[in-house]
């Protein structure tokens, strides 16, 4: 029986690449995304290529949706071996005095609370299985901070330490939890706002490896954290960023 992975944000750039990478390795991937159409699209691609995939819509900030989706997936497939929380992000850049309370909460919810709600539902299943791998998504800004992104940096820093705490809590049941921290990555979402040419000018000179990340670069790290070669790894943060940040 193949492993089952639940991937939030699976319809997006990084999430889609993670779903494709895991499916290529024979993992059954459940692609969950706020944008159900985007999830369906990734699913169709994977299925057309001979992989196993399912798609569904989810708002990870709403507890009852999260609970229903996790229960449904667990019922349908009997288990959840891998949870990749990739849903999140924030396009807002503003000075602190310009952020409204509602905007702060929106960024916190989409990133940190969504990760919490997903982990809260999936962790008990994994503990019962005595195996499981959770991979959460932070950002290099969660370590360095970023001017004009106070809520996003705070949420991502929160994910790093939340994951460490979760790792300690779940370790006795052989459930591992780690964080992947991307740097600047060329996803369709960011490239809607900034052209490749502009990204090259802004980022490439600052990055030792001379380019921004492709979603596939990140996907390899998520996939590695699901393999037996990573059996001794828990509570850690993996920066994949071409060297732009070396904590």
């Amino acid at each position, binding site marked *: 029986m193949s492993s089952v992975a639940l991937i939030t944000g699976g319809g997006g750039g990084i999430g889609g690449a993670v779903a494709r990478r895991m499916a290529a390795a024979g993992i059954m991937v459940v692609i969950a995304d706020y944008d159900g159409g985007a999830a369906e699209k990734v699913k169709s691609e994977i299925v057309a290529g001979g992989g196993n995939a399912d798609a569904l819509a989810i708002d990870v900030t709403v507890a009852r949706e999260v609970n229903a989706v996790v229960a449904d997936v667990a019922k349908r497939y009997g288990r959840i071996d891998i949870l990749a929380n990739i849903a999140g992000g924030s396009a807002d850049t503003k000075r602190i005095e310009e952020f409204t309370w509602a905007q702060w909460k929106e960024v916190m919810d989409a990133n940190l609370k969504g990760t919490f709600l997903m982990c809260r539902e999936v962790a008990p299943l994994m503990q019962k299985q005595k195996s499981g791998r959770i991979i959460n998504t932070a950002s290099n800004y969660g370590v360095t901070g970023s001017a004009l992104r106070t809520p996003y940096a705070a949420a991502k820093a929160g994910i790093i330490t939340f994951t*460490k705490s979760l790792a300690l809590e779940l*370790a006795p049941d052989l459930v591992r939890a780690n964080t992947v921290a991307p740097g600047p990555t060329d996803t369709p979402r960011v490239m809607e706002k900034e052209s490749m040419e502009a990204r090259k000018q802004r980022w490439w000179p600052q990055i030792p*490896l001379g380019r921004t990340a492709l979603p596939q670069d990140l996907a390899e790290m998520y996939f590695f954290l699901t393999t037996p070669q*990573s059996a001794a790894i*828990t*509570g850690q943060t993996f920066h994949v960023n071409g*060297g732009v940040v070396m904590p």
Partner: protein
Amino acid sequence: MRLKDKVAVVTGAAQGIGRATVLMMGREGAKVVVADLQAEKAQTVANELHALGAEALAVEVDVADETSVKRMARNTFERFQRADILVNVAGIYYPKASVVDLTEEDWDRTINVNVGSNFLCCREFVPAMRAQKSGRIISLASGIGHYGMRQFSHYAASKAAVMGFVKALAREVGPDGITVNAICPGSANTSMPRQHRSEEEVMERLRATPLPHILEPEDIAGSIVFLASDAAAFITGQSYNINSGTYMF
């Protein structure tokens, strides 16, 4: 096979983490230089690799000796004409001594072997990697380089220095397509901790991790092989902890 036809040079390869690394690399298709101060043991490991069907060359090296390191590089290029991967595993973890009792000789020896070796080995292999516009360098640091350890100030300082060196070199050679990263193992099931602890103490420590998983050399080798593979092309300047959850920096 993730390392098909890559040439990998691994120091400290006669035992423990180094040995596990070269065996895994051989299985992944790499041609391996098994470098170690202990020539006979290195030859035994090379023979193990031959038995797996992998190409291997055993080389005697003192990684803190400039002439010896140059000879290792010469032997590598004579036999394989290239070097794609350098893994700096060779290191020492002895003697145990308080700062006030530590001799200058022991301080120098630890720093030279644990981090001076990184400088000497990288200096020999970076030019070839630069010329081919690709290369992977992976150095063994240690969690002790982050959090320190009483009576091991020399070891802690040397391993923190490895992380600093890795970051600086990563910046220097990134534009040439070379990645440089460190692995920080926790206490692993090797001969190293047994140099100053009883068997009982060693096993107790190995079992005292949050994740009930005794850290074996193969666990470290798995991450080294990942960093050496194409999958890690965009990772550089990082220090990854592999420690069954002992600490989380």
